[in-house]
């Protein structure tokens, strides 16, 4: 069978899913069926328990009142939790529930609100609005034509690198001159050394 919450394949007869921890519970007694294999499904199931197929959201949980032909609403038995006391019945006046009868999350904040536990540290990350061109058209006919100007080309050699190209192009001439001067000096030194040796040897 498949876990109805995460869709993973799990062994038969399990109470909880070993992968996502969902409580599998009792066999299904819903009104919907899987479109793929026809197995019964519960309204809150995300995946079919029999074939693992992804199930659409089932509204049948809200459709408790199904009328048979010829029936009228007055004859349909209303579930206990939907019954309201008839007017005039003792104790049927509307009474406000006290806070103590309300669950925690419905109660009015009290003076102890300041002591409420802090928010969990892993807060959800809210993304700023995504302005998609097709969802929020706001252009007008006075649109600046420069909006259509092509953007500059990406990823080009930096201009300074090109400057180095120009400098490098000029460099060879300068380099050659320096080399010539160095050669001349070296030659002059060599000649001087030779002359000195000759003079010394005399």
């Amino acid at each position, binding site marked *: 069978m498949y876990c109805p919450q995460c869709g*993973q394949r799990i062994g038969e007869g399990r109470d909880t899913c070993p992968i996502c921890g969902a409580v599998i519970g009792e066999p299904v007694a819903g009104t919907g069926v899987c479109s793929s294999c026809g197995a019964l499904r519960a309204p809150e199931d995300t995946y079919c328990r029999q074939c693992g197929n992804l199930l659409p959201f089932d509204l049948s949980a809200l459709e408790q009142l199904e009328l048979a032909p010829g029936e009228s609403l007055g004859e349909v038995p209303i579930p206990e939790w939907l019954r309201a006391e008839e007017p005039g019945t003792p104790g049927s006046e509307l009474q406000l529930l006290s806070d103590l009868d309300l669950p925690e999350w419905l109660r009015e904040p009290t003076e102890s609100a300041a002591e409420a536990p802090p928010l969990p540290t892993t807060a959800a990350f809210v993304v700023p609005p995504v302005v998609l061109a097709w969802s929020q058209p706001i252009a007008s006919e006075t649109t600046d034509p420069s909006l259509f100007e092509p953007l500059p080309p990406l990823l080009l050699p930096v201009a300074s690198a090109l400057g180095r190209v120009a400098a490098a192009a000029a460099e060879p001439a300068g380099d050659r001159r320096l080399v010539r001067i160095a050669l001349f000096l070296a030659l002059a030194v060599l000649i001087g050394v030779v002359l000195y040796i000759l003079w010394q040897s005399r």
Partner: protein
Amino acid sequence: MHSAVAISCNQGMTRIVLADRVEGEPRLLGTVAVPGRDVETGLAFAEERFGRRLLAEERPIRPRGLLGDGADAWIAVGSPASVPLLAVLAIAPDPLLTDLAKRAAEAAMVETHWIDATQVASLTALVQQLVELRPRFLLLTGGSDERAWQSAMVAVSNALGDAFDLEVGIVIAPEAIQQLVAKTIGDQVELMGVDPTTSQPAEVVRAVTSEFRSRVATLLSAELKALELDRFVDRATALERALAFLVRRADQRVALVDLEQGMLGIWARSEGMLTLYRAGRDLEQGALGLAALGPETIARWLPFPMTEEDILDWLANRVMTASPFLFEWRDQLIATAAVRALVQDLASAGPPSGMREDLTLVVLGPRLAWLPAELALLCALDGFAPLPAGGLVSVALDEADLLATCGALAEIDPGYAAILLERDALFPLAHVIVVAGDAMEGAIAVRGEVRAGDLVHRFAVPWGSLHVLPFPSGRSAELLVEPEAGIRIGSLEPGVAIEFAGEAALGWTRLGIVIDARGRPLRLPDDPPVRARRIRSWLADLGVAEGVMR
């Protein structure tokens, strides 16, 4: 301006796009596409479809009549029947200048052929190469070695003359070299020059690309001369304008792939734009050009086994039939595999890795809008492998070829084009949440819930799969996605959840919201049967029936 007709003229398809004011606002009335370059049939079908006369005595009706006949503006956008050949001659190659020339040539909507003059055995061999190529355009680039330039220009001069006619030559070199070139071949060919030492690199590329593109547009206008249209714009320029608008208006980081004639890829973000064009690589006349990628690069994306010989036969049949139709699922799956291989190959020559993948919007050209939605989505996700910083990337189809139309119309009436583009240009295909990290195959990677009105749907997505959350029609949806430990969404920190709620709720898309939990980079198993099974599982995740995957 009330109405406009755009004729989108490409190799395998001709489209007639009609826009008119509806309740005072420019809207797309419709697009008619006919196979082949057949403007006459396209206009005839458009008249029949829209119930309006567009031509009178084979001439456009202009201006728009009271009953809607004709249009105020008539434009053509596209490419000439035969893509012109550009020969790039690198003389005394300089890496920086070669890169500039490369960028310019690749964005120019021409077929490029590279010649490195230093690698050619002799002057005569260089002359022979040029004569055999018979290029229409010439791009010369190189350093300042005058001797090398002199001998190369002798070769070019010898090749010119009655051997072939060159329309224009552009020189990317310092001024002195430009003078030398002008002296040698200035009498034989029209020359233009750009000095990279005194111009910004962007200016150099822009100047060279614009010149070639304007000549391509001129070739197109010569073919359609009889129609006396208002404007002729090459396809790349038109698309670049439209994407520039999207980037500026909606702060998008966009990638586009277009297969109308050859393959065009454009990456655009606020910092700039990169355009790459590959002639002779598409799904019709250029199908055999895909063989250069290697049939195995196509075979690896197929959900069924197919030999390399069969793939070559398929490509050869596409060229032989020159028919744009892909009716069979098998053909569509092969085409999808080919497109993924093509886009990957193009993207590898594109921006560097981080910039290449950080996309918020992927746009598929009109040719790809004909594939089934699921396959078109895979072309975008597998080809570009986006990994958006914010975790969300949207995929859109330019079904009606409106991006090129609006980009061209912007030359006449930018306001009209802007409204048309914003309202009708892009058809939303899917919103994709991209999940990265590492986990065991099949283990839950992310959980979440999607809320549309009162409906709440919870989901959990295993690692290595795709998960589709269909949209209730006509609604927007709020989405919360929580990754497991060690898993991250986009470039966010591992474990950080993401929520689209309130103003950030996601708008309707055709396929809905897709959670791509296959990780990045996308890895395909080496073993072919296992790989095919993996591809089939992804197709099944998207809702493609098992029976068609054979």
